[in-house]
């Protein structure tokens, strides 16, 4: 288990964070750029020295200001995947991968070259030089290299940010596979909600050097008051669900969740597989009467449990449909429909709005 409690004065803000990460879980450190995410993970790795506090990993003290403990980077056993791959240009891919591999007599080798090569699909790259690789390939090598150093903790600092948008979707499944395969705690720094939802079990929301919220991805994402941090445009509900049925004729997958059944076009899986869907608030609309003859496939009964009104023409309402679901409507609609807390209504989610990108296939079951 990793336990972090640090303070660090930076140019524009003071970082002051405290959180814990459990073994075998992925924690997304989420926030806007400049919020202090990178400083946090650099402190954990030992690349930056905090002003105050303590960092422990599996009961080993990595840093303690009062005890004047500050373990050097190379003795922390923490794998780090940087924003840019940082591969050694004078070595082949294979030599890069093996760089951090400890001598077998020193430590039990859990993660082998064969394993990493297979997991990250690197066999055709082994003899090549980093300069000849694409951005995505480089980052895969960099992830493999970090894993082979047999780390007790893996830190990933926006590993996809230097990769073209259309290639990111290619890398995410690889990261997900290694997370499922290698049972070490992972901290994944990102400002992309999609990546967080896709990969993470827990989320630490960080803003201006402070932690605003931490908890399961579902719990954090469903908070109405966190929009300023998560970004209004992308905000919405995260629904955990199991695969129920695939309608071959229309190519639609059905996911069962406590509020009913969510239909997702183009999704196929095994029955009982765990999925996590991101339903954006702006793709949810409401109706007081049961709508007839509409194209919407996903229709749920619900009751308003919270309304968030600010100066904008839009309002967010939290509806209990078995789980809390966030809908964004105009202030005008709110007033015309006379919606208040407790109002019963029908909630509609446009199926085509739930694209495959916003669906995470969770391999280890969610608790």
């Amino acid at each position, binding site marked *: 288990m990793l336990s972090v409690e640090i303070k660090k004065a930076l140019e524009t803000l003071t970082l002051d964070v405290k959180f814990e990460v459990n073994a075998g879980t992925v924690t997304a450190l989420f926030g806007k750029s400049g919020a202090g995410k990178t400083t946090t993970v650099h402190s954990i*790795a030992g*690349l930056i020295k905090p002003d105050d506090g303590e960092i422990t990993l599996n009961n080993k003290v990595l840093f303690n200001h009062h005890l004047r403990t500050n373990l050097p980077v190379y003795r922390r056993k923490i794998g780090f995947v940087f924003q840019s791959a940082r591969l050694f240009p004078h070595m082949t891919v294979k030599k890069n991968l093996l760089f*951090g591999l400890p001598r077998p007599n020193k430590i039990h080798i859990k993660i082998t070259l064969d394993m990493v090569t297979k997991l990250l699909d690197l066999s055709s790259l082994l003899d090549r030089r980093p300069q000849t690789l694409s951005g995505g390939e480089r980052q895969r090598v960099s992830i493999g290299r970090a894993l082979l150093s047999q780390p007790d903790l893996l830190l990933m600092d926006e590993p996809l940010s230097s990769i073209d948008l259309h290639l990111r979707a290619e890398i995410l499944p690889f990261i997900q596979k290694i997370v499922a395969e290698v049972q070490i705690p992972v901290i994944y720094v990102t400002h992309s909600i999609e990546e967080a939802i896709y990969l993470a079990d827990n989320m630490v929301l960080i803003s201006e050097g402070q932690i605003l919220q931490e908890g399961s991805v579902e719990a954090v994402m469903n908070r109405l008051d966190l929009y300023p941090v998560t970004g209004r445009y992308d905000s919405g509900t995260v629904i955990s669900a199991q695969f129920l049925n695939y309608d071959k004729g229309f190519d639609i997958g059905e996911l069962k969740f406590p509020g009913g059944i969510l239909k997702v076009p183009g999704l196929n899986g095994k029955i009982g597989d765990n999925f996590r869907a991101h339903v954006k608030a702006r793709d949810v609309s409401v109706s007081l009467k049961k709508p007839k003859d509409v194209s919407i496939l996903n229709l749920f009964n619900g009751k308003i449990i919270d309304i968030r009104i600010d100066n904008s023409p839009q309002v967010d309402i939290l509806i209990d449909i078995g789980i809390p679901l966030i809908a964004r409507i105009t202030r005008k609609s709110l007033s015309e429909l006379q919606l208040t807390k407790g109002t019963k209504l029908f909630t509609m989610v446009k199926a085509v709005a739930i694209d495959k990108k916003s669906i995470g296939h969770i391999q280890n079951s969610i608790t």
Partner: protein
Amino acid sequence: MEFFSPVEYEIFLLSLRVAFWGVICSLPFAILVALLLARYSFPGKFILNTIVHMPLVVPPVVIGYLLLLIFGNNGVLGRWLFEVFQISIAFTWKGAALAASVMAFPLMVRAIRLSLDLLDIELEEAAATLGAGPFKKFISVTLPLILPGIIVGTLLGFARSLGEFGATITFVSNIPGETQTLPLAMFKYIQTPGGDFQALRLMTLSVILAVGALIISELVERKLKARNL
């Protein structure tokens, strides 16, 4: 050796030996000083930097005289070296090598420091996160990546050593077969009536050596760049 007369051959070999040992002995110190100047801040850094660059700006005869004061047979270190180890540097080829190495030192430090400044420190950070301690990090990441700078610095220093004159003649005089390197021999022949032809021959040799060193340096640099990019 049909081309060289025995005397020329002796001058040629002595020059190579002096330059070779001069450069080899100062290389580790040049790397160390370049690392200190490029990576660390410490009290006295400005003074160290000034001392290192002294041979570039001070007249060589001053350096030669300083060496004589320090390493001469009555000098501070020179006497100690002779009493303890029976080593005498002044007026020997070793002294010539010392003079050459002092004069070449700033050129080597500058070339190595430049490549250290250009080296991405992020790669060293990555090496550290992979468990590489300071020694492994330096040997397997820093050193290979600054190798072009080290080679260029070494060849520049070598060429500078071959041409060293002022400090050498002041410190170890102009002794045929012992301290008479190419430039010193040329100087002697120019001063000798009727020595013009001999001086010209030595001049040609000198130019060929220097240009050769530059060409090798260029080729090595290109090859290393092609490998790393």
